[in-house]
């Protein structure tokens, strides 16, 4: 996890026009079968700088896992160029394996029938990590992820949350420069999710480890990622901050006010729409351009405010809108 200048460029991951086609055979009649190429990843450009914490999102089947597998050297790309830590993943798989860590949320790197501790010892040998370095990293993970209570328990007896904490540790003991996480919080309870997120946030803050994370849990994204890349139908449909996504899809904040008595007349402010009136309660929606402050100061002149709340736009809503619009018109993608 320390920076000893192992490579020059700031771009840890670079992909240009990355694609993966799968051949599927479709039954046509009794014996005839037709081969069809389906693009799981269809020309993805991606640049990730050292120390970034990137959220990689997309609906099921969008090509997230396939991209991750091409970046980690598991799958051979059908086209395009890719380099991770300055290496080409598939031909340089073994060199790359020493410099990246991978957690597949639904697959284990651990020895099922052995105590967790034994897996770490085996991994130390597999990755040829000096004992002192290994011990220091394990110490840190034990503290942050609270592994001690189950370090001597066979992995098959661990709860999912415990196992995931164990998997994260396993992926980090050789000090990878890049950590790839494929749905690390899938199926975890709230407490375990928070533990995993907290740990990743801390890891990301040090800036030594680049993290690429796929997830369906948008709370992971909100908590962790400043930059998100959304793919759908194998193509990048958004690359940037969450704010940019809100602006693009016209996300609306919502202001709800309770008056003592309903006000007689309402002001006409640009970008502010009255959504509902239920007795003394008024609900407004605001475009991204409108100011909450202006609205509130105007409202206070109209009567006595008893209560007031501002709701930020839901990321879920924005993402859902994004998926839906891409589903309708996959050709109209943002360059």
């Amino acid at each position: 996890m320390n920076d000893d200048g192992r490579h020059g460029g700031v771009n840890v991951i670079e992909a240009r026009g990355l694609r993966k086609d799968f051949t599927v055979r479709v039954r046509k009649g009794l014996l005839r079968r037709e081969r069809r190429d389906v693009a799981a990843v269809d020309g993805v450009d991606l640049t990730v700088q050292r120390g970034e914490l990137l959220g990689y999102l997309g609906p099921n089947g969008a090509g997230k896992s396939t991209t991750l597998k091409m970046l980690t050297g598991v799958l051979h790309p059908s086209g395009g160029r890719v380099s991770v830590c300055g290496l080409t993943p598939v031909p340089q798989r073994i060199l790359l394996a020493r410099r990246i860590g991978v957690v597949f949320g639904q697959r284990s790197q651990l020895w099922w029938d052995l105590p967790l501790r034994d897996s770490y010892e085996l991994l130390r040998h597999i990755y040829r990590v000096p004992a002192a370095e290994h011990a220091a990293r394990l110490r840190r993970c034990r503290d942050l992820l609270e592994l001690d209570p189950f370090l001597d328990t066979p992995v098959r007896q661990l709860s999912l949350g415990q196992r995931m904490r164990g998997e994260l540790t396993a992926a980090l003991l050789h000090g990878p420069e890049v950590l790839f996480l494929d749905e690390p919080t899938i199926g975890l309870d709230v407490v375990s999710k928070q533990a995993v997120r907290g740990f990743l946030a801390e890891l990301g803050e040090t800036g030594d480890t680049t993290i690429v994370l796929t997830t369906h849990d948008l709370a992971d994204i909100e908590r962790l990622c400043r930059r998100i890349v959304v793919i759908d139908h194998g193509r990048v449909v958004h690359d940037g901050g969450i704010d940019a996504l809100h602006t693009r899809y016209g996300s609306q904040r919502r202001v709800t006010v309770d008056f003592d008595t309903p006000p007689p007349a309402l002001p006409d402010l640009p970008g502010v729409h009255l959504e509902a009136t239920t007795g003394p309660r008024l609900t407004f929606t605001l475009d991204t351009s409108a100011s909450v402050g202006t609205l509130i100061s105007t409202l206070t002149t109209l009567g006595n405010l008893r209560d007031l709340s501002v709701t930020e736009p839901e990321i879920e809503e924005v993402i859902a809108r994004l998926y839906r619009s891409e589903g309708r018109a996959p050709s109209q993608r943002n360059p």
Partner: protein
Amino acid sequence: MAEPAAASTAAIYRRLVAAQVRSQLAYRVSFVLDLVSNVVFLGADLLTVLVVFHRVPVLAGFSLADTLLVFGLASLGFSLAELIVGSIDRMQRHVRTGLLDAVLIRPLGVLWQLLVLDVGLRRVGRVCSGLVVLAIAVRLAGVPLTPANLLLLVITPVAGAVFFGAMFVATATVAFWWVDSGELSAALTHGGRDFTSYPLTVFGGWFRHLFAFGLGFGFVAYYPALILLDRPDPLGAPAWLGWCGPLQAAVAATLAALIWRTGVRHYRSTGS
């Protein structure tokens, strides 16, 4: 990054095998049952041979002792291959469960990792039975223990193991393209073992040619056994063929390695 020394790579694999032993010993009863059932399996094959010779004194020109020698050489070679490489016939499962993905992200060779992570120690039982049968056959057939014969008795099962191992790997590789490919694999490995367990003379025309020469199974046990028994081939092949096992094993291993490499390169994975 310096290339790791071969010796320390071997040490890593030793640790992985040791871990597998500990894992399997976690289920003691099932381990013992497996071990016993594997001995019984070989016993059943042996029984077939004995039943046949109970009815006829000579089978296609070969006595019981002669046939047992062929059987012993083939069984030992096969069971060695099965012990070390046999688990690869679960390749489809490794593709489906994602073990293959897990193995691909580690800085070690794919094939050896899969073999080590799935090594079936219960198969030790079969190797032991194979050794016992071979020893008995050597004694019954009165094979003179000259240095040349001893050498042949060592290299033949080893070459046979390499050859069957190559068969296991080559046929399991098909799972990279065709996820349900178990039948083909079984036909060539277990079918091949049954073929090599009997003198070639019991098989007829084209079938014999295909298996014995086309696929190379004749070199596993039959031709070496002829040298050990010091008798000419009733089918007229020259005696030196009995020493060609290692050569044929090397060819088979090279081909299997090529097929395996191609398979890994074209591995398409099963999605998330």
